[in-house]
């Protein structure tokens, strides 16, 4: 009952379109992929399923970023870290599922540990062969890190670029740490050559299609959670923090607690996105922690429309689709196109694609609408 009320009261029109389209995709794509024979014009190729599944996880990451940046004004240059940590937790589970089917046929140790002469499984890996434990870790590790980091940072009132740069320092430090082979996470090669997940062959097309649907569902769930947060009463305060943090504090709100809440939820969301990403792309390696990846996530949100949630997801899909296409179609010059796109969007579509589209739509309707709470206003940096 609550849910229905929530759905009908809190979801705006763009949100409905978004959810319906995703719902259709979650059902239709696997069907078109598995049931329609290749060669038919309705067939969705395996490659496309994998690709769009990847975009879905990126879109979830973008929603997580938009939640903290678009609504709470926290520009995180380190969300890639939470994404990668979730991915590593999933990767470790998948790695242990290989079992004795590794190239060295070692009963317990992953291949990279065998040829680096590790004698036993490091403590950090214990329990990861148990799927529920791994899934808890997918949420817990990024959540806990975000909680501890946020607890200190928000309490010390680290804001603005200072916060952005220390989040960057966080992901950079993690990247360097995971690059070290001594850490026991596979160093630069990371974790790869996965065989199966919960007993299903990870290379089978059914598994892929299911993973795609799961990613879509996770994206829908992520959107609903984020939407629920920003339209709640707490959401109003969160937006107030974005627009005038000192003033909100002077009004008596414990700003740091609200920030910490959004921040941790967002990190968990990013972690889940990472966990869904890994089985679909088949590799997780420390370069996922690289600061450039986190900046790219910011770029998706900005391109799609900051503070719109749907726009963030759209931006993630669009930029990554452009990237996939450009790297194949113009391998020599795609960076010009991508860089040009970012400059163009910033200069000419300051509210992002969705924000601009909404404005245009409203002006065409020529009837004044109450300004949505989610419109991309100009927050203090």
């Amino acid at each position: 009952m609550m849910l229905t009320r929530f759905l009908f009261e809190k979801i705006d029109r763009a949100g409905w379109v978004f959810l319906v389209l995703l719902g259709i995709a979650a059902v239709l794509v696997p069907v078109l992929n598995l049931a329609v024979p290749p060669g038919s014009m309705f067939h969705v190729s395996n490659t496309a399923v994998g690709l769009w599944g990847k975009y879905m996880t990126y879109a979830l990451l973008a929603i997580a970023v938009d939640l903290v940046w678009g609504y709470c004004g926290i520009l995180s240059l380190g969300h890639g870290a939470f994404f990668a940590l979730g991915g590593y937790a999933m990767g470790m589970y998948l790695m242990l599922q290989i079992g004795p089917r590794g190239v060295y046929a070692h009963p317990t140790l992953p291949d990279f540990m065998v040829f680096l002469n590790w004698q036993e499984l490091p403590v950090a890996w214990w329990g990861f062969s148990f799927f529920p434990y791994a899934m808890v870790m997918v949420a817990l590790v990024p959540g806990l890190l975000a909680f501890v980091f946020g607890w200190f940072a928000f309490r010390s009132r680290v804001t603005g670029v200072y916060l952005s740069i220390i989040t960057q320092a966080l992901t950079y430090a993690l990247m360097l740490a995971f690059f070290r082979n001594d850490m026991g996470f596979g160093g630069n090669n990371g974790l790869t050559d996965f065989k199966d997940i919960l007993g299903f062959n990870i290379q089978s097309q059914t598994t892929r299609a299911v993973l795609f649907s799961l990613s879509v569902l996770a994206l829908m769930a992520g959107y609903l959670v984020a939407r629920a947060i920003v339209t709640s009463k707490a959401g109003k305060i969160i937006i107030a923090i974005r627009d005038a943090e000192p003033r909100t504090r002077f009004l008596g709100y414990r700003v740091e607690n609200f920030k910490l809440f959004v921040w941790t939820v967002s990190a968990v969301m990013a972690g889940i996105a990472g966990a869904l990403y890994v089985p679909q792309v088949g590799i997780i390696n420390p370069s996922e922690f690289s600061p450039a990846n986190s900046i790219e996530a910011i770029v998706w949100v900005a391109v799609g429309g900051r503070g719109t949630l749907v726009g963030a997801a759209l931006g993630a899909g669009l930029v990554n689709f452009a990237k996939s296409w450009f790297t194949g179609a113009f391998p020599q010059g795609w960076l010009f196109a991508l860089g040009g796109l970012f400059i163009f969007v910033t200069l000419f579509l300051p509210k992002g694609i969705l924000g601009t589209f909404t404005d245009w739509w409203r002006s065409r309707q020529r009837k004044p609408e109450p300004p949505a709470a989610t419109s991309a206003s100009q927050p203090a940096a």
Partner: protein
Amino acid sequence: MNASTRYGPGIISGRLRPRPYHSALRGERIGYVGALSSCLFAALVSFFLILAGPARAQDNAALVQRFATESFNDIVGAVNGLATSGSPRAAPVIEALRDGRLVYRASDRAVFIRRPDNSFVNALTGDPAADIGTTRPVRLNNNVRRAIDAAVGALSLLHPDPARRISAAEAVFKSRDGTALAALEAAIGQERDARIKTLMEEARAAVVVANPQASEADRIAAIGIIQRRGDQDALAMLGSLPATTPPLVREAAESAAVGIRRTLAVWEAGQNVWHGISLGSVLLLAAIGLAITFGVMGVINMAHGEMVMIGAYTTFVVQQVIRTFAPGLMDASLFIALPMAFLVAGAIGVAIERLIIRHLYGRALETLLATWGVSLVLQQAVRSWFGPTNREVTTPSWMSGSIEIGHLAITANRLAIIVFAAIVFAALLVFLKRTPFGLQTRAVTQNRRMAGAMGIRTNWVDAFTFGLGSGIAGLAGVALSQIDNVSPNLGQAYIIDSFMVVVFGGVGNLWGTLVAAMTLGIANKLLEPYAGAVLGKILLLVFIILFIQKRPRGLFALKGRAVE
């Protein structure tokens, strides 16, 4: 091409003993031993000739012919044979070999010297030889080079050039060649320069210590001399005594080595601090332009690293032009590159400001997006234009090599960069604090509207300030081209560190940037020997994160309205 040379331990004999490593010459810049005028060399050889006794002329032909081989062992033998023969052809032949100008004709094993004008002379007679047919060069490898160094070294103890005498003394110190003793004694007798004399005495001591015929007392006294030298060469010397050394001598050598190690450990700490200052100055240079565009103007300038890269590529282009049109100016190339890099990077900076950034004031975080795009475009532009591979930037001779102060090795390029960073920093400080333009810049960044109301053209100041920051990044690129890759990725390597430095020091405060760069540099280098390069860096990043909790606005927080 199928060199069937066997490298057995047998070649480590005669003049080719295992040799300790060679450190920088004390007080002298090292470099490739410059060409020596043939006649001087010949005169010295004739001096050596008298010492060595006359050689039989008919042997010369056989000696020179030994060079006509593909076997490095035989070439080493030929060098040694020729050097000790006292033949008047020794000097020109060995010199030609050193410079890669010795060739031979495979058909009859005749050996020729290629002169700088590409004509040939017969190596044996020195007569011009025309139409010599196909020849192959006599090849060099490290063993041959060592043999040449030893041969040339021992022969130039009396050279009029002090630098040559120093390298000769060092060569003997390392070779511990008993046959050089007589020449060494004679040289010590004549030497006027106290420093060189000390070196020669050390070399003599090295010969004596290694000489099984010398008395134990002499050898222990010699160990004392070597201990006074006290550097890593001395340690190497003491650590490699022949197996037949009597126990007493061995004990003295070991206790001397312990003493040297103790002293060197202290110097090592100093060396680490020096490395830290050097790294700090690199960080300062990389970050100082960002301290203006980001720190002062508030633009999250992700294209900063690309400005550094453009500065480095400007250096490359300037050097290419100089190489083509005025090769003599190569040593001054960096001084020409500096203003050019400033102008090129500065102009691109102004263009970026006018075209993009100026539309984004008040939307600081969106500058991140736009400059990220700019950075991608610039990287790819450079990659398309110059190619993806590294470009060679020549290091001027005055920036090569190292000097030693005490036991501190100071590399010339690092010293130059430290001095340069200091100059740039001081100049920028004076510019911002003491010039009308600096005043306007500070006014605009502190309170844009008020500054505008006072009649300052804020647009113009913005463009110029961004250009200044970018120009300084270009200057940093000139310096970094001397120590790092000149590739399209150059900027990416420094952008994160630069942001860390600026934020750690406190945004908007130049002194903060200086202190932050030096702190991070020195801390990094003090940690590295114990924690390793990666862990050291991780520790520093964690430290920055914790430090910002303690001081949320960096080391030197800016106060007043500009903060919010």
